[in-house]
Structure formats: C-alpha cells, structure tokens
C-alpha cells in the first residue's frame, strides 16, 4: 500500500504519475521557481504546466494556458528559435523535449477555434497602429480584457513583414478573423500619419484613450510627433511596460525594439496591453507586472530512463498522438508529486522502483494495522 512521498527528495519528474497504472499520483506544478525552459522562454510560457496538462490529455486547458502568454502559438511554433530546448533537462539525458513541435500542434488546434464576442468591460477605447504581429498581439490581449479596440493597418491585409511567407500569411489571416470575431475592429488600407503634427489629436477626437504604435521598422528615425527616440532611432520605451515618453502612448515590436525576434514582438504587445489596462484604470503602468522569478536548477538526470523523441514530420510537426507522447517526456522540473488516490494502490511497487529520487515508500502490506496482537475477525470480510 502506498505509504508516503518524501517531499524533500521529490524532483517532480512525474515518473510515478506516468508509471502508475491505477492513477494514484498527481503533480503540483505551482512553484515560484520556474523550470529552466521557462526561464529561457522569451514569452515566459508556463511550459511546465502546459506539458503537465497535455500529459493528462487536457488539450484545451493546455492551449488556454499557453495563450495567457503567447497569443499566436501557431506562429510561434514555426518562427521561434526555441531557446527553451537547450536548457531542457532532458538535453543531458537523451534529447530535449520537442517543445516547439508541441507548441505548433497546439497552435494549429488554436486556429480551429471559433471565437465569440467578448463582453465589453470598458468604456474607453484603445487604438493600435499597425497589424503586424506586435500590434495584433496587443489588440488580442486588449480585446480579451473587454476593451473596444481598433487596429489601423496601412496594408491591404494584416500581418506586416510576415506576409512574405505564405504559410504565416494564411495563419495570420485566421488570427485576424478571430480577433474580429472577438469584437475588435480591423481597419485595413488605413494609413495613419504618425509623423504628422496632429496624429494624437486625431485619435483623441475619435475617442481613443490609449495608443499602441506597432508600425514596424518603417518609422525608424522619424519621430512620431511628441515622442522621444532611443539611440537607435526607434521610439524610446520603458522596457517592462513599453510606455513611451507620452503617458498614453505605447510602442511595441520593431517600432520600439532593436532586432526583436517575432516572439519578442508578440510579448511586447502583450505587456503593452496590460500596461494600457493599468493606466486607463488610473493605476501605475507597471501595476502587477513585477514578478521575481527564480530558476530551478537543472535536475540530475542520472538514473532516469532514456526515451527518444517522438518522430516528427519533415517540417518538424507532430500529430496528436505524437504531441501527447512527446509531452510525457517532459520532466516538469520543479513540481511536486503527491498521492491523490491512495485507495487505488495495489502495491505493485512500480512507482517506487521507477522513482529516480528514491522518494517513494510503498508498504509491503496491503492494509496496515498498528498491532497484530489479536487477529480475530468479527466475522471477517471474505
């Protein structure tokens, strides 16, 4: 009968969860310390939780968790350099988990979602200039929070520089449609004269209270009226909130960042959206945005079983089966196992023998009595 898990020894690798045929165990993935992959992830995706949810086949919840920090996983999966995979603990054991492949799979599932209008929570409107991925990201999070949002895009379609790739272009079209289904307004072929003298007044006249400039690199060197520039000629912003020198104006993506990856561009949009929400409520722009994170040390993988990655398609993609299998390779670094359904234990010892940390104790007796002085049954339970 399962007796105990030594919390001090448990590394949260999930071997017990994955081994037990009777589903006795669960993981608690809440930990202030983040896994090495999460520390490397520019979007700070909660990869540990996402993979754990997938391990339990909770696909929609895994996707919801991913979307909290990454608005367009179908793009990120394809575009991201995957800095998460290098520090993955499995890297030292066999091969890192195919985190990018998993994200792409979830992203494709995301594209199939049908979205409905988000209930309006705010009176004041926000404007996003530019429907590249940074702008779309900002628009996505603002809309999700219940703000009325209008995205102004100079081109015929959304997507910015990503339109040059046909796969990305079609993905962006789907995301743009989802955004509109949620209630955001997308005004195409609408060039906003950011360098003109009265662009802010024009937007104020249209009753926009906050502006997110996501106009890309083309602004470089040309100052939108009233904004300070950085040394490299882009709009100068606060590194956390992406607030410009004007309180209600934010700048994201290439308009503000030098050599930003696509993922970082999307992250900047998310953070700016959060900061916009803060200032429109009258709080400081960075309210709720400073969280200290500690890394978990990469685990000692000695004693663990090797397991090759699930074969991916030629483009690196995974099937549903492949995604679920691959998620099982994740060692959910930093979580803690606990005994969830002990009464189902049938004393097979598989968890204890598989636990690389020696944290599990299974008592050899099926039912335990403190004393055996007198085993007379009151009739016995036969």
């Amino acid at each position: 009968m399962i007796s105990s898990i030594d919390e001090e020894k448990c590394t949260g690798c999930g071997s017990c969860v994955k081994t037990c045929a009777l589903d006795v165990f669960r993981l608690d993935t809440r930990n202030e310390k983040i896994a090495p992959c999460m520390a490397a992830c520019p979007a700070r995706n909660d990869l540990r939780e996402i993979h754990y949810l997938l391990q339990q086949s909770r696909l929609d919840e895994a996707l919801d968790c991913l979307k909290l920090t990454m608005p367009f996983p179908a793009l990120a999966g394809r575009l991201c350099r995957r800095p998460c995979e290098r520090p993955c603990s499995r890297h030292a054991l066999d091969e890192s988990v195919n985190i990018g492949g998993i994200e792409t799979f979830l992203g494709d599932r995301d594209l199939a979602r049908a979205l409905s209008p988000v209930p309006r929570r705010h009176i004041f409107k926000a404007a996003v200039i530019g429907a590249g991925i940074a702008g779309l990201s900002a628009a996505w999070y603002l809309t999700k929070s219940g703000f009325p949002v209008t995205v102004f895009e100079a081109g015929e379609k959304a997507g910015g520089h990503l339109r040059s790739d046909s796969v990305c272009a079609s993905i962006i079209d789907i995301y743009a449609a989802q955004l509109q289904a949620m209630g955001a307004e997308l005004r195409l072929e609408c060039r906003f004269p950011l360098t003109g003298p009265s662009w802010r007044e024009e937007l104020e006249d249209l009753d926009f209270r906050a502006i997110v400039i996501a106009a890309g690199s083309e602004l470089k060197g040309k100052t939108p009226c009233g904004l300070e520039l950085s040394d490299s000629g882009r709009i100068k912003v606060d590194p956390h909130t992406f607030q410009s020198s004007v309180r209600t104006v934010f700048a994201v993506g290439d308009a503000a960042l030098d050599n930003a990856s696509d993922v970082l561009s999307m992250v900047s949009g998310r953070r700016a959206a959060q900061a916009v929400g803060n200032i429109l409520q009258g709080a400081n722009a960075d309210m709720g945005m400073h969280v200290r994170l500690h890394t978990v040390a990469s685990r000692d993988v000695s004693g663990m079983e090797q397991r090759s990655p699930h074969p991916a398609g030629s483009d690196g993609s995974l099937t549903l089966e492949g995604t679920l299998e691959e998620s099982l390779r994740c060692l959910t670094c930093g979580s803690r196992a606990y005994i969830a359904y002990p009464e189902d234990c049938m004393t097979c010892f598989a968890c204890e023998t598989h636990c690389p940390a020696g944290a599990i104790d299974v008592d050899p007796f099926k039912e335990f009595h403190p004393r055996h002085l007198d085993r007379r049954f009151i009739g016995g339970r036969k």
Partner: protein
Amino acid sequence: MHATKLKTDVLIIGGGFAGLWAARQAARHVKDVLIVDKGPRDWGGLGGMSGGDMITLHADQDINEWMDEIVFFNDGLCDQLMMLDTLRDSLPRFHDYEAMGHTFTRDEKGDYVRIPQRGLTHVSLTTSAPTGKGGINMRAALLRSMEGCSVRRMGNIMITAITKDGNRVSGAVGFFNRSGEPVFIEAKAVLITAGTGGWKASYLQNSMASGCVELALDAGARLRNFEFIDNWNVPKLFAWEGQTVLLPLGGRFINNQNEEFMAKRYSPVLGSKTDTQYNIRGMVLEVRAGRGPIVFDTSRIPEECMKEVTPAAGWMKLNNDKLKELGVDFFKDKIEWMPQPIASEGGIATDLEGATGVEGLFAAGTAQSLPTGVYFGGLSICHCATSGYKTGEAIGRYAAGCNAPSFDQDQAEELLNRELSHLGRAGIAPKDIVRVTQELMAPVDVCVLKTDRGLRRSLARLEEVKHEFLPALGAEDPHYLCKMVEARGMLKLTEAYLRSSLERTESRAGHFRADHPCRDEATPLYWVEICQNGQNMVIERKELPMSDYPVKPYRYYMDQFTFPLDEIESFLR
C-alpha cells in the same frame, strides 16, 4: 445567502464626525443607535483624515460681525439661520472636544492659534495640535467618548436604498461590501451623514465618491446647492494640505513671469489671500493668455512661520519626506498647481434640526448644504459637530416619541436584488464610469468659467453614458459591487451639478458663468433645488426667506475682483 437583519431605533448612515456626534446625542433619548459605514468601522470618515482645524466663534468675538462678513463672503447666498446656529454652537462643541481630550494649539502665551480666513477680518479658524494629526486625534477623542453608550457601529456595509412604510422611512437595505451578503435594517428614524460626494480627485486624501445623492433623491428628499463645488487648488502631481494657512502667511500663486497675477490683475484688494474659486479663475485666465504654468510660491512666508507650515507629523510628514527623496522640495522648488474638482458642496435641504421633509429622514454634516462654493478652512469640522449634535438631539427625540414602522421585507428584497443581480456579471467596469465623470467635470467651461455650451456638452455626453453604459455595469466581486453603486452615484451627482449650474443664470459665490458673469440683481435671491420625479431630476428655484434673516446683503465679496469681461467672453467663442 445568509441575510443579516438588524433592528434599531435610530439608523445613522455614515460613521464620520457628523454621524458620531449625532449618535452620541441620539443615544440619550433612545435605547439603541446603529451607525453603519461603507468603510472600516473606526476610520471616522474624512474628518479623521483632516487637519482638525475648526471654525470657532470664541467668546471675545462678535457673532454679528461674523455674520455680516459671511453673508458678504457668500455674496448674499447664505442660509443665515443655519449659519447662526452653527456659529453659536461652535464654541460649546469646541469645548466638548477639549473635554473629550482633544487638543487645540496654544501659542507661547497660552492662547489659541486663530488664523483668519480668505482675507476676511473676523472669520478665523482655530488650529488643532499637532499639525498634521489633528483629525486623527479628533477621531480618537470622539470614538473614546462613545464608549459605554448604547451606540453600535458596523463597518463595511454599503447602504443602497432607504425603505419606506407609506410616507415615512422604515429602515434601509444594503450589503457587506467584501462578501456581498445582504443586510436589512429596520429603524424608526434614519439619519444620512454620508457626505455628498465628489470626483475622487486624489486630494483631501480619500475624497468622496458618492454619498447621499441617490439615497436621498430616491427617498423623496430635496437637494440643494449642487451648482457649487469644491474646485480645489492642488499641486499637480502630489497632495499637499494647508493652503488655507499658507496663503494668509504669505503664500502666492505666480505665473511664468513670476507675477503674482491675482494681485496684479484680478484681485487688487486681497491678492492670493482669497477663496480658491477666485484664484482658480485667475489661473485659468493666465493660462489662456499664455502665462502658464501656475506655480505656488512660498518665498514670502516669513522664516519664523516656516516651522508652523512644515509638516511635522502624520501623512503630511511622510509625503514631504518622500517628495524630498524624489528631489522635490515644496518650499524651494517651483511646484505647479492645478485646479481639480474635488467634492460637491451640494446637499440635502433640511430645516434647522436636520429634518428633510420626508418623515423620519434626517441629514447632517456635509450631507447637508451649508457652504456655497466659497469655503473657509475648518467649516466642515465645525458644522459636522454642530449639526451632528443638533440633529442627533432632534432625531433622538423623534424616535423616542414614535412607534416602530412596519418593515416591508418584500420591498426591501426587491430593492436589494436590483444591486445584487449585478454580482458576478461581466460588464462595464465601475472605474470607467468614475473616470467619465472626471472627464465631464474637468473642462474649464464646465468647472471654472461655466458656459451654457460647455455644461450642455457634458450633459449630453452624460446622458449618452447613462443610457449606453449604466445598464451594462458589471461587478465581478462584492468589492466591485460597492464601487458600482458609488459610480452610479457619482454620475447622478455630476448630473445634479450640470443641471443646477445651467439653472443659475448668474454668477455668485463659487458659481461663475462666463455667459452670465454678473449677479442677477433683478431676481430675489434663490437656491437651486432638485427633487426626483420617476427617473428624472426636476430642477426648481426656491426663494431665500430674506425677511427672516438678520443681514440684508449690501456688499459682495465677488465685487473685489476685476476679472476682465472681454477675456472671459473669449471663452464663449
């Protein structure tokens, strides 16, 4: 959900100074008095956050001289009978405070420190000790004095409606604002001492959101004086209190040419030592003429007075220390100031004993309306004590002499469900409504140099917001439910302000119309009053009973100013 049912003889809504004074007195007449407040039980309202200075007519001062000056200061628009009562009762209440253990400042000779107000000769406030902690001490003294008497107090209850038994009040309904649990209160008489409300301008510490406006109107009471507001002059970025002391000691407002513009152009008699509403008008005209920004200059305050005005305790000291850490020195830097609509000076119309005209419903403190847009420091502290005391007596005697009304539980539940049905609903955030009201008030042609156009523009926008967003308000949790009720009240308050301002087609006291810049001498003096008909506000004029008043206006404070009419007219274009 568990419903809390309470029963009392006298229910007091609002546990600030007026409510506490009233409770003390009412408790002498009835068995049980219950105070409820939407904030913490012991916070003592805004008085607990003030400097504790009090307008007091001391024995060596002449009430007639004061009344003459006050009527002059208010340009004739003064409830003289109420003002007389307030002045007469100020000294007894002052002594009561001392008996409770509160300390008023004494100088080296042992005399009270009295600071004349607004360039007036006679009217002065008496300061509390120590500077910055007066309000806290007053609150503590009042709470101490409540021990042992049959007054019960409960905090974190938001009252949303007053219940009626026919034409008389029967109690109130509300909810605990951190749990959303319903509260039903049966009472023989109800006293509103919840203030009137304001625009959460982050000055005067936690200035009000909304107090009595909705409650009173829905109960059938009449409101008055809503065209008058506390449009207070404040530093742009941070809080600072004590203007009413700094100005008489030599503080001045100067423009970007270092001119004391009030003395130079608009206020030849008083300079900056005047009521805030006038200084603000000057500021606006200066900015319009390109001579902004306006800063507050302390360099003329004598060295020996600096100790008195430098914050020594409480939040003022902490504030000052932090500003210094940020590199801001109030007394050395050029600190930009800004007008900000803080609070309404309107209130519920009552008789001299606080009776509203709705049977069993009384009002006291800042929920009544005494000042008319021009204000001297310490008046609220004074009036809260005097009216609290007096109305407490009146309501206590009333409740002692009547039977309990019948409390209609169904009516009460229906009233409450209208609020509670919002709980958990996704909808418009209450804070957004708050910010809308702030925006509606801020334009210069709405809050300083009012014009018909500006007022109507804000009113039109208000109506839009009312129709589009009020029905869609959401409250994710009980905290937001409370804020939602407040936000609605603020919208109503703002509407009352706009409509009343439109009604008064003249300029007088704190109300200035750029399109009617003079006093209307042809019409007898009137108040602008409001009552409710269904969902609509009805605005009426009520003539002042001048024949009952001792002072017939013959001179006017506003005549001391020389605001150029042509420049003012430019605001109309």
